[in-house]
């Protein structure tokens, strides 16, 4: 066998593929020829075949008899855990992190509204400026057409794409605030659920979960105690070892800050019927530029802007220039991301609030998993602007000690990583998850760049100027001052909208994540 050992090794390495019928014809022939003359390899292959037969004959295990009923029961129990329960302080069971979950969703909503809603000033002035969403939408009736001048009609649009790639299209649709909200309600979509769906953060949650295990229990316990919602949780806490108590005490300031933010947001959000009021409050507390709007070149934010109809119309008219290939790429991006998200990333999330400072701006960072990611970055960025006012009272309490405590919760590195806006590769992840994660990240980066360039090119044809662009790709734009035309770049043609009164009042933009 010595002289044939090398071919034998090769043949045995191919045995699996051979038995699975995955060899090319020439390879298959080589294997067959070798098997005709090598009894040892025949035995090897037969061993594998026998193994397959053993697997085949292994009996199915019967599922639990009452599987259907128990699944239904679990589903119903979870559904009953509604937001209103949270708001009234009842039925707050088992997991304090739901508070954070809620707060996260609500905060993200708030951030979305910051960019998506009219200001209170707009409303009081009786203006009816629409939100124009360059956003995923199922209704493609307006695709490929210039912006409709139906801003006065306030045609509603769904800004809550659920991430179905087939439905992800770029469409230009004026949206009025009330009708958008009604749209949600008619669809029976819980706003928090909607926000969750839109802002699911993907990352290697299992790894993070494991890393944070030592702190999770005391944190959850402290949450429960702080909210005083569950006597059982108290008893549970009382039985924890002394060390845990100490950990809770150490974390108390941070936990209390988290709790106050959470409760504040939850209070708003739990009152579904006052949802609009909540939006108003968020918007009214947001100081927005009066002569500008926000647009975004980032397909993940899929934007866009709110402001004077004339300004939005300008953007809208060139929006269809974004080619079909780009839209399909976005769909492709989403499918890759979904492949990841629908898997391990969805559950076992450690929710957390982070509060920190970024330059001179207070920043309320909300994440589900502390993993830097595209979605997280979006939430972060939007929070920077949109939650400034909401966050301000709490930021006053953000002492260095508190910040350190939060850093403990976040295991230190997360805050740093987040501030650096890194891709999700900084934390350790199992190879298989990391592989898909990296695949998605690479594709996202490439597509974002391409998409951003397309939108920039599009915007350069408009009589607008870009005041700033944040790392997320959200641009602060305004109509170019005709006297300063020469300062603008890339103007290729004069739009009819150049006659628009530049003293328009911008109000925000609509963030519609494409998940």
């Amino acid at each position, binding site marked *: 066998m010595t002289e044939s050992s090398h071919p034998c090794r090769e043949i045995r*390495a191919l*045995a*699996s*593929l*051979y*038995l*699975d*019928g*995955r060899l090319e014809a020439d390879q298959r022939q080589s294997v067959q020829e070798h098997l005709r003359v090598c009894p040892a390899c*025949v*035995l*090897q292959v037969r*061993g*594998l*075949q*026998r*193994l*397959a*037969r*053993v*697997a*085949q004959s*292994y*009996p*199915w*295990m*019967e*599922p*639990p008899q009452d*599987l*259907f009923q128990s*699944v*239904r029961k*679990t*589903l119903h129990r*979870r559904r009953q855990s509604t937001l209103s329960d949270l708001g009234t302080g009842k039925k707050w069971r088992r997991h304090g992190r739901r508070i954070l979950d809620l707060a996260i969703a609500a905060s993200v909503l708030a951030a979305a509204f910051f960019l998506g809603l009219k200001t209170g000033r707009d409303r009081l002035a009786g203006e009816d400026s629409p939100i124009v969403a360059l956003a995923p939408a199922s209704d493609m009736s307006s695709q490929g057409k210039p912006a409709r001048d139906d801003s006065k009609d306030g045609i509603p649009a769904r800004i809550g794409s*659920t*991430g*179905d*790639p087939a439905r992800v299209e770029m469409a230009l649709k004026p949206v009025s605030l009330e009708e958008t909200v009604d749209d949600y309600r008619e669809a029976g979509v819980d706003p928090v659920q909607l926000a969750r*769906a839109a802002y699911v953060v993907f990352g290697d949650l*299992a790894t993070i*979960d*494991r890393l944070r*295990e030592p702190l999770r229990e005391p944190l959850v316990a402290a949450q429960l105690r702080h909210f005083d919602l569950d006597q059982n949780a108290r008893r549970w806490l009382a039985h924890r070892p002394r060390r845990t108590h100490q950990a809770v005490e150490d974390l108390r300031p941070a936990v209390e800050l988290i709790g106050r933010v959470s409760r504040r947001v939850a209070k708003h959000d739990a009152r579904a019927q006052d949802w609009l009021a909540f939006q108003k409050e968020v918007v009214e507390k947001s100081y927005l530029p009066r002569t500008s709007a926000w647009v975004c070149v980032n397909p993940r934010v899929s934007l866009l802007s709110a402001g004077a109809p004339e300004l939005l119309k300008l953007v809208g008219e060139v929006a269809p220039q974004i080619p079909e290939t780009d839209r399909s790429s976005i769909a492709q991006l989403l*499918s890759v991301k*979904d*492949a*990841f*998200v*629908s*898997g*391990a990333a*969805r*559950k076992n999330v450690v929710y957390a609030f982070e509060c920190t400072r970024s330059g001179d701006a207070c920043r309320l960072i909300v994440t589900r998993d502390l993993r830097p990611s595209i979605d997280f970055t979006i939430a972060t960025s939007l929070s920077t602007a949109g939650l400034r006012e909401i966050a301000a009272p709490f930021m006053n309490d953000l002492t260095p000690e508190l910040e350190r405590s939060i850093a403990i919760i976040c295991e230190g590195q997360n805050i740093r990583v987040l501030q650096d806006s890194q891709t999700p590769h900084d934390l350790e992840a199992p*190879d*298989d*998850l990391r*592989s*898909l994660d990296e695949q998605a990240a690479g594709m996202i980066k490439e597509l974002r760049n391409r998409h951003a360039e397309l939108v920039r090119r599009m915007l350069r044809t408009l009589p607008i100027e870009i005041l700033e662009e944040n790392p997320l790709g959200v641009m602060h734009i305004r109509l170019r001052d005709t006297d300063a035309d020469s300062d603008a770049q890339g103007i290729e043609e004069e739009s009819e909208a150049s006659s628009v009164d530049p003293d328009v009042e911008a109000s925000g933009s609509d963030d519609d994540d494409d998940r």
Partner: protein
Amino acid sequence: MSLWPGRAERRGKSPAADLESLTDAQLVERLRDGDESSLDEVIGRYGARVRTYLGLLVRDQTWAEDLTQETFVRVMENAATYHPQYPFSVWLFRIARNLAIDLLRRDKIHQRAMDTLKSEPQAFDPRSRRSSSPLSQLEERELNHQFEGAVQRLPESFRTVFLLRHFEGMSYEEIADVVGVPLKTVSTRLHRARTQLRHYLASYLGAEA
């Protein structure tokens, strides 16, 4: 054409005739609309498969039952996120696998499973098959038990690939989707899994093994 005997066609029975005619994607569509009767059909089709898969993946049968239940809860809860371009089974087993992995990591029941393996054989109930004689029944039972143990000795990544291939009859491409690794990795893991299993079960697979 595969030379392996398949077993994916072994399905559970469906409870309702009209639901039986629906494709998986159509069933999920109904789940998305909140139709819980469709869930019954999904469980009928996949309940035993998921249960078996999880049973071999985590070994601890109590956990496997819990995970099976949770898997279908997630299916119902996340039906809206299912994209028909993926086979339903790929999506389903991805959910099941991820739940199992989370559990294995978090609760270290993998270690428990290994401990169990070293101590006493776990009761096994081969309800769905009967052999012709008490002796062959005994042999089969023993073989199945050894097979369970051997599968448990595989690293999780190998185990998953092996189970999806041999118990779900998934293609390499589908396994790659479930596990989230390149095709080449699937191929490598599968081959190594088989080789290791053949080694573990050498005395049961006969002289040729």
